[in-house]
């Protein structure tokens, strides 16, 4: 039944279209566009679109806004109480049996494409550019007339080239062999990742060997050009993960590496930093909304201080009594982590809290057609580098750093030389904790903030420290970046979970070969 109706409608439409551009959208056409299977509706839409009839615009807009109902071969635009018959524009009464028009995703895309097609000849350049972007995924032969007309009037060179590509991607599904051939060759110059998938898809369907060869050549050309973007993308996400790992592990490198304290609550210090950021953000939102973009400037010291204070309290109350008993420290700090998690859960709820990025951290910079670097990730990379620089300067240039190194090398001798080792311990532990807090502040910009935040990082950050070598900041840096990139490389190959497992196994194997990590401290002690 519907098929018959569709055929009949198509015939009417074809006749109407043939009759010339002058005639406006007829009620029958409107009903064809609104009722039937998606294929029939899209075909009808493109037939009307071919006439370039501007009366189509309000109708398509109404369809997209779900304001159209159909009944007995007529479409009605319903806005509140007001009912208009589509096509004729007459006010009318809605029949009892009128049904809503449901648009699936494909139909929506086609409708949006139709609207965009009208904008291709708009006077505004950005509007035209947006229209081209929208049509990228829906271009087909039905829009060819529009595309050609737009290309002939387009004056902007860049847009003209993009229109040509668009025309080519519309033509690639043409029934005519020579057109497909030309389109395949044209598409070779495209920089767009979607062109690659389009070509691959059409290549699978193509039967003509000549066209097939041309398509394969173009696909090859496009993919070679895109491959660089992908490689750089993996490198960037790897470095980004590495910088987060570095921030998480740097504090641990100080407390574990330099002081020999296993801090299982390190992840919770990250979490405290993230919650401090969230608190600062909430305060700014309520009291200083005009300065909201700069809340980060206050959140960084706040997260450092919050975590450092908690760290100092931990060191003074528990860890101090357990120096030289690493296994006990491990269990006690695990207990602390349980308490910290539960405290945060009681205070702020078990749900994740939302930390908003400042506006200057959202968005990203497009480096290659298929490579966009988000600003927040870039900011974290820079931030991690700055924190690292700060820590290195602190450890190597300041008096406190000298004391920390002295106590690390020989606690008793340092004490004999007049260093207050107990105080140095507290400072160093607070410093490590504070750096974890900074890591939490950075994490809050890219991920969820919840009571369990720290748990996800504790194994990873220990792996970084173990791999890098105990007592070595340089090792930590290499290990963090290396693990980050390796993780992302394997992820692209085998998926996230298997990548993680492979990384863990690789670390275990690596430690077989070099039990002291990448950079071993030289020594002759039999006990390590």
């Amino acid at each position: 039944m519907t098929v018959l109706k569709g055929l009949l409608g198509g015939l009417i439409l074809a006749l109407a279209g043939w009759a010339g551009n002058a005639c406006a959208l007829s009620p029958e056409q409107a009903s064809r566009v609104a009722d039937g299977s998606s294929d029939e509706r899209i075909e009808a839409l493109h037939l009307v679109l071919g006439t370039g009839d501007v009366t189509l615009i309000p109708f398509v807009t109404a369809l997209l806004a779900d304001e159209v109902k159909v009944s007995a071969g007529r479409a009605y635009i319903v806005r509140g109480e007001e009912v208009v018959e589509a096509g004729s524009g007459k006010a009318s009464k809605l029949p009892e049996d009128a049904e809503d028009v449901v648009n699936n995703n494909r139909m929506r895309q086609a409708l949006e494409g139709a609207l965009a097609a009208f904008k291709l000849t708009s006077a505004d350049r950005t509007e035209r550019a947006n229209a081209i972007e929208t049509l990228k995924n829906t271009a087909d032969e039905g829009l060819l007339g529009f595309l050609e007309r737009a290309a002939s009037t387009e004056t902007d060179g860049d847009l003209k080239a993009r229109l040509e590509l668009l025309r080519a991607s519309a033509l690639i599904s043409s029934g005519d062999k020579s057109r497909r051939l030309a389109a395949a060759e044209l598409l070779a110059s495209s920089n767009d990742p979607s062109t690659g998938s389009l070509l691959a898809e059409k290549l699978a369907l193509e039967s003509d060997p000549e066209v097939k060869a041309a398509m394969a050549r173009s696909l090859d050309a496009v993919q070679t050009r895109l491959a660089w973007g992908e490689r750089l993308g993996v490198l960037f996400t790897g470095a980004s993960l590495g910088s987060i790992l570095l921030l998480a592990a740097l504090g641990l490198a100080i407390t574990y590496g330099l002081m020999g304290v296993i801090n299982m609550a390190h992840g919770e210090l990250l979490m405290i930093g993230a919650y401090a950021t969230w608190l600062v953000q909430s305060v700014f939102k309520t009291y200083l909304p005009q300065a909201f973009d700069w809340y980060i400037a206050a959140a960084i010291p706040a997260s450092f201080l919050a975590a450092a204070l908690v760290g100092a309290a931990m060191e003074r109350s528990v860890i101090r009594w357990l120096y030289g008993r690493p296994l006990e420290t491990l269990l006690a700090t695990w207990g602390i982590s349980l308490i910290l998690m539960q405290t945060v859960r009681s205070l702020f709820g078990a749900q994740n809290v939302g930390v908003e990025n400042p506006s200057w951290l959202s968005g990203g910079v497009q480096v290659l057609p298929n490579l966009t670097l988000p600003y927040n990730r870039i900011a974290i990379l820079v931030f991690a580098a700055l924190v690292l620089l700060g820590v290195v300067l602190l450890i190597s240039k300041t008096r406190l750093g000298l004391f920390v190194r002295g106590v690390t090398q020989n606690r008793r001798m340092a004490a004999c030389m007049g260093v207050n080792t107990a105080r140095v311990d507290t400072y160093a532990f607070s410093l490590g904790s504070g750096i974890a807090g900074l890591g939490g502040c950075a994490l809050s910009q890219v991920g969820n903030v919840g009571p369990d935040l720290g748990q996800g990082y504790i194994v990873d950050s220990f792996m970084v420290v173990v791999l890098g070598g105990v007592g070595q900041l340089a090792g930590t840096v290499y290990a963090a970046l290396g693990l980050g990139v390796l993780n992302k490389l394997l992820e692209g190959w085998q998926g996230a979970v298997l990548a993680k497992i492979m990384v863990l196994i690789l670390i275990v194997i690596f430690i077989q070969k070099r039990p002291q990590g990448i950079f071993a401290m030289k020594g002759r002690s039999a006990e390590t």
Partner: protein
Amino acid sequence: MTPPRSAFGIPPQPGAAGGPAEPPPRRLLAGRGWTGVLVAVLFLSVVVPVLNLFVPEGSALHLSGFYVSLLGKILCYAICALAIGLIWGYTGILSLGHGLFFALGGYGMGMYLMRQIGSDGQYKSNLPDFMVFLNWKEFPWHWAWSDSFIGQMLLVILVPGLLAFVFGYFAFRSRIKGVYFSIITQALTFAAMLLFFRNETGFGGNNGFTDFKRILDIPIATPGMRVVLCVITGLVLVGFYLMSRAIVQSKYGRVLQAIRDAETRVMFTGYNPVAYKLSIWTLSAVMCAVAGALYVPQVGIINPGEMSPAAGIEMAIWAAVGGRATLIGPIVGAFFVNGAKSWFTVAFPEYWLFFLGALFIAVTLFLPRGIIGLLKRKGDSE
């Protein structure tokens, strides 16, 4: 920096460190010890079944089914704690990965129990429900033995044992010890958990195994079966305790304790610590796996949550709370912590983690020898 001798946190035992070691006692247990074992066996195999099955429900002496399952569960935990006590208390190896072996044993038993469901599942298929759900047509290769009880019980012992052996061999050979070893065992457990969470591995993914119906063709969810499983678990625990006791009193056990106190010296004296550590480590893993296999039919579910790093670290605290320098200590600790847990999570659910956290801290700071140490000190001063 050379860590002090007490790096493993074991305060020197009177007479064991410092002065010459006392000669090993010849008897497995003192007279009082045998009495204790006898009382435990009698309590488990006579008192519990009688109070649960034969004393009528209204009576004050009746032991409800809930407490029988709780007892069975805690007995399984006690086996794990004992296993940890052997390697941590007596050999100085702290494993945070025993949750993995426990869960592997549990999964081994779970596979058998899944096969016992037969075609009584939701989908009336010979395959377990989750496989039907994933649209699998036949059992994956590692389920080959799962229809035979004997075969599967062999796997319960062999798989965790082999894993522990291979992992331990590489770890001990390259002299990974102390916290390094602890952290790597934790990483191993974490990796395994991620693996078991996946559907493709054929272990039911997130949901694991549940809805068991029968064991050895006998219905599993009956009061009688509950008591039988609980009694078996208790007897296994007693057996393991006697075995551990024999181990720590043998010459082999003395070497283990020497490794704990000064591994390098043991090495320089001509022993190869790798063989000692590897054997006790593997044995401990197998004990844990047996506990897991006994645990699953009693609680009726196994899922990857049992492998989480938190579960492994909790096992260590059982041993620490009770006092890991003895064998009875870990068992006492498992009962104390899990008893407290089942009471807290009912009475004040939100405070359980505070209590557990405080327990971790208090025990390490104030009770390095655990509850048993506390009792002994009192006994000494009297």
